[in-house]
């Protein structure tokens, strides 16, 4: 590492350097700018790394800076002196301060020369006597880790790593102060690359060298460099200390480069036709629901360090099960296709019996849950109510005075959990002027019409009452966002930490999961969770186990029981629910059917489901990308599908 004193001595100053080439194409000539007005300073003892992809201009920049090519504009001062416009003879002394190591070691050593002659050649040009040359060559050979008996060999008798050691010895022969390393390890095997990187670091320290290092490989650059310059299209787009650039990259290209090298799995490559107002609809939603972090701000929900691995007992015949709805009888496999399924996982008695992935999904891909997220919030409340941290019969204004003049001023927390808050709110997903559309604008899920981008906090304050609370069921997504805000405010913890610590880690979730946040970092409780299908199924299983897993009571038994019991059916008046199963109800952010099986489920628009059938100990998690938000036919098909699967004897 550098200390302040060394940093002060300027070794090389590149000022406003540009290099253009004439390109002949189809009988015409145009100018191609390889390096575009680049300025860089190189201080004594430092390693400055220039990283960029092929064609970014990094090698051209280095060649111009080191006087191998002439720049079109600008100049380089080496130890305060310029090379530009002077003859080779006049600048020989100055050039002896420069050393070069290139990518292909066998190509940079004359194949007819012995190792001894290759290293000695630069010295002979400076007319030293043979004896002192031999002493110097032996010394360098030893320093780069080669044995004396290799002096008589030629390059074809050496391995790639040995050749590069010879090239390094040759570069150091004239005792240079500044060395250019242009992709010094790119043609070497991994195990040899590490040797050469270690050697370069050792030599820099011992000989007080200054390196300008060029590479396409961010890992190699960041390993050796004190500062990093990122180059793209002939320009430096980012420059800073290695830690600054790696830890807080500013330019999108740098971020992408770091993501690729950090080995993170999901690609953030956004489809060309992506549109923030259309991503929830098909066909864009197939990609978008699996890649929320690529275009929305999210917070990570940490998974468990001791994951629970579900045992598998796959039944291949389930694909062929016949599902009856209306007058048709169809295969499960065909229905899954019709319902734009991205994934489905079915557990019977806690074992995976059916599991399918489509559209690029896999066991490890997270997928947006939409409003199934609400059911996870319901469980969080079960937990904090039991702890006594929140009293659900109090109004929002008791905990969040900020909301006192909104609809939530007079509504209780339990009323919001059961969706019986009476609010002037239209949950119409297709109307761009509905309150729902404005909620999407507030959280950044849709581009804002001017003046509307206000964040969740300000948006919730604008909602007004529409009648008496606690009387009628009214499904309103904003309720859940208010609940998510409140639980964070009261517990003093972030939403992602609450999910992770209270549910995800105790139950042994293993996949990656995120929660979407608004511009102020407030969580989108109404539908912003993405997780893997298996982890969602695991959460469903926890309810069937009455909150208890392996002897540990993760969710309160009473809360689970209360949820299964449902609320009084008369508060339900949502038409589409009534059409589906008359007498069904809604409790604690879960839907409860009125069938003998007493299934409960979470549901989200575009076909997201977590379906629990306690009568057969079955969990079905199904994530989809149906092109439109709500469709009664699709809803009926889903219920028919889940009942056919859940009620089959295995």
């Amino acid at each position: 590492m550098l200390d302040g004193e060394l940093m002060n001595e300027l070794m090389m100053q590149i000022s406003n350097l540009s290099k253009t080439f004439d390109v002949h194409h189809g009988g015409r000539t145009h100018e191609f700018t390889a390096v575009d007005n680049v300025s860089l300073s190189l201080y004594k003892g430092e390693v400055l790394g220039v990283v960029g992809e092929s064609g970014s201009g990094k090698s051209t920049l280095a060649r111009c800076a080191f006087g191998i090519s002439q720049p079109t504009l600008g100049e380089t001062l080496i130890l305060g002196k310029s090379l530009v416009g002077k003859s080779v003879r006049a600048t020989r002394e100055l050039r002896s301060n420069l050393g070069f190591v290139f990518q292909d070691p066998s190509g940079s050593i004359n194949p007819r020369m012995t190792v001894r002659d290759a290293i000695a050649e630069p010295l002979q040009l400076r007319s030293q006597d043979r004896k002192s040359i031999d002493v110097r060559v032996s010394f360098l050979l030893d320093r780069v880790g080669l044995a004396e008996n290799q002096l008589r060999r030629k390059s074809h008798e050496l391995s790639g790593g040995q050749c590069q050691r010879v090239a390094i010895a040759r570069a150091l022969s004239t005792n240079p102060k500044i060395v250019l390393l242009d992709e010094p390890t790119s043609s070497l095997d991994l195990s040899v690359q590490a040797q050469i990187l270690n050697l370069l670091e050792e030599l820099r320290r011992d000989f007080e060298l200054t390196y300008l290092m060029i590479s396409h490989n961010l890992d190699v650059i960041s390993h050796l460099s004190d500062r990093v310059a990122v180059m793209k299209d002939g320009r430096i787009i980012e420059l800073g200390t290695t830690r600054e650039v790696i830890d807080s990259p500013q330019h999108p290209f740098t971020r992408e480069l770091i993501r690729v090298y950090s080995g993170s799995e999901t690609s953030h490559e956004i489809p060309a036709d992506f549109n923030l107002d259309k991503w929830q609809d098909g066909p864009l939603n197939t990609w978008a629901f699996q890649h929320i972090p690529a275009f929305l701000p999210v917070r990570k929900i940490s998974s468990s360090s001791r994951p629970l691995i579900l045992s598998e007992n796959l039944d291949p015949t389930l694909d062929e099960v016949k599902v009856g709805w209306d007058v048709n009888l169809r295969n499960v496999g065909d229905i899954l296709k019709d319902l734009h399924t991205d994934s489905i996982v079915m557990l019977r008695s806690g074992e995976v019996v059916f599991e399918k992935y489509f559209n690029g999904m896999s066991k490890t891909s997270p997928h947006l849950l939409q409003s199934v997220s609400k059911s996870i919030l319901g469980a969080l409340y079960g937990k904090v109510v039991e702890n006594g941290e929140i009293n659900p019969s109090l109004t929002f204004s008791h905990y969040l005075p900020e909301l006192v003049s909104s609809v939530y001023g007079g509504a209780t927390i339990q009323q919001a959990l059961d969706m019986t808050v009476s609010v002037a709110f239209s949950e119409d997903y297709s109307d761009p002027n509905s309150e729902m559309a404005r909620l999407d604008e507030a959280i950044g899920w849709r581009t804002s019409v001017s003046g509307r981008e206000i964040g969740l906090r300000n948006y919730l304050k604008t909602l007004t009452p529409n009648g008496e609370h606690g009387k009628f069921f009214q499904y309103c997504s904003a309720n859940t966002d208010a609940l998510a805000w409140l639980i964070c405010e009261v517990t003093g913890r972030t939403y992602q930490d609450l999910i992770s610590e209270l549910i995800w880690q105790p139950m042994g979730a293993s996949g990656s999961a995120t929660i979407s946040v608004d511009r102020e970092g407030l969580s989108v409780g109404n539908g912003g969770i993405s997780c893997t299908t298996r982890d969602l199924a695991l959460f469903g299983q926890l309810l069937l186990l009455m909150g208890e897993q392996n002897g540990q009571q993760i969710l309160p038994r009473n809360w689970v029981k209360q949820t299964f019991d449902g609320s009084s059916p008369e508060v339900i008046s949502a038409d589409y629910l009534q059409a589906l199963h008359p007498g069904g109800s809604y409790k604690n952010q879960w839907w409860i059917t009125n069938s003998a099986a007493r299934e409960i489920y979470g549901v989200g628009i575009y076909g997201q489901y977590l379906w629990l059938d306690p009568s057969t100990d079955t969990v079905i998690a199904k994530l989809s990308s149906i092109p439109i938000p709500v469709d009664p036919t699709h809803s009926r098909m889903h219920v028919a599908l889940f009942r056919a699967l859940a009620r089959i004897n295995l």
Partner: protein
Amino acid sequence: MNVVLKVSDLAVDFCIGEKIVNSPLRGINLEIRSGETLGIVGETGCGKTLTATAIMGLLPASARPRGRIEFADRGSLEPSSMGSIRGSEITMIFQNPQSAFNPIFTIGSQMRLVAQKRNYAKSEIGSMLNERLSSVGLTDTKRILASYPHQLSGGMLQRCMIAMAMISSPKLLIADEPTTALDATIGDQVLNLIRDLQDREGFAMLFISHDVTAVAKVADYISVIYAGRVVENGPASAVMKSPQHPYTKGLLGAIPSASKPRGTLIAIPGSVPSVLNDVVGCSFAPRCNLATSTCAEEPPTLTVGQQSVTCWMVNS
């Protein structure tokens, strides 16, 4: 799941004049099931590409392969039957897309040739090619089909090559360093594309690379090859997280990383041995810091957890 490819004790001798040169492969054993990816990791000259060429039946005339290569339900593969399998049931993508295409024909004419070979009706070919190209993320299909290789970028050409390899809906795809010649960000896109295609089409894949990080991104299983022998094999996550063979440990330790703290890298001393040298016992012993006199004997293959490791110094 059913085994698509099973390679047992594969070795390839070479006849140079009257002389038979030792096989650079010293008994390779591999197994790939449908829908799965086996990643082969190894350094220069360890025999990665020779293994692939032997499976494809593309060895030079001087080669004398030994051992068994079994494919899907066809049993043991013979050179005589390869004509009907190569390019249809087994397809391959190569490192350098620029040289894999013929520079004097358009992409379209080269792809149509493959489609005709695969008995597509003339009327279907156009729509099939459009579909294949859009499945690899290329939208401007008309322009691409009319282009010559030099008119497309490396990433686009590699996508075309993948689309071409998919024309026959192969059971096995062999990918030999498919991202090595590409820029890191483009290479990453190609890896994601290959994985998505595999999820959709369900082919088995043999993915060969010297780049451990690339292999870890796509492979379900990893076989580490050193000097012509599989020295470690197991589920990708297990091999990456808890490598057992001293060579695998060294290889993973030698990778510099932007996310790791700086400092001296753990380098494996020496370099990969020449395949022409006679090796007795463990070929890694000369570079191994655990080696003892026992290592002069043929090492046993032991099972550690889900991994199998060919080494004297590993406790099973």
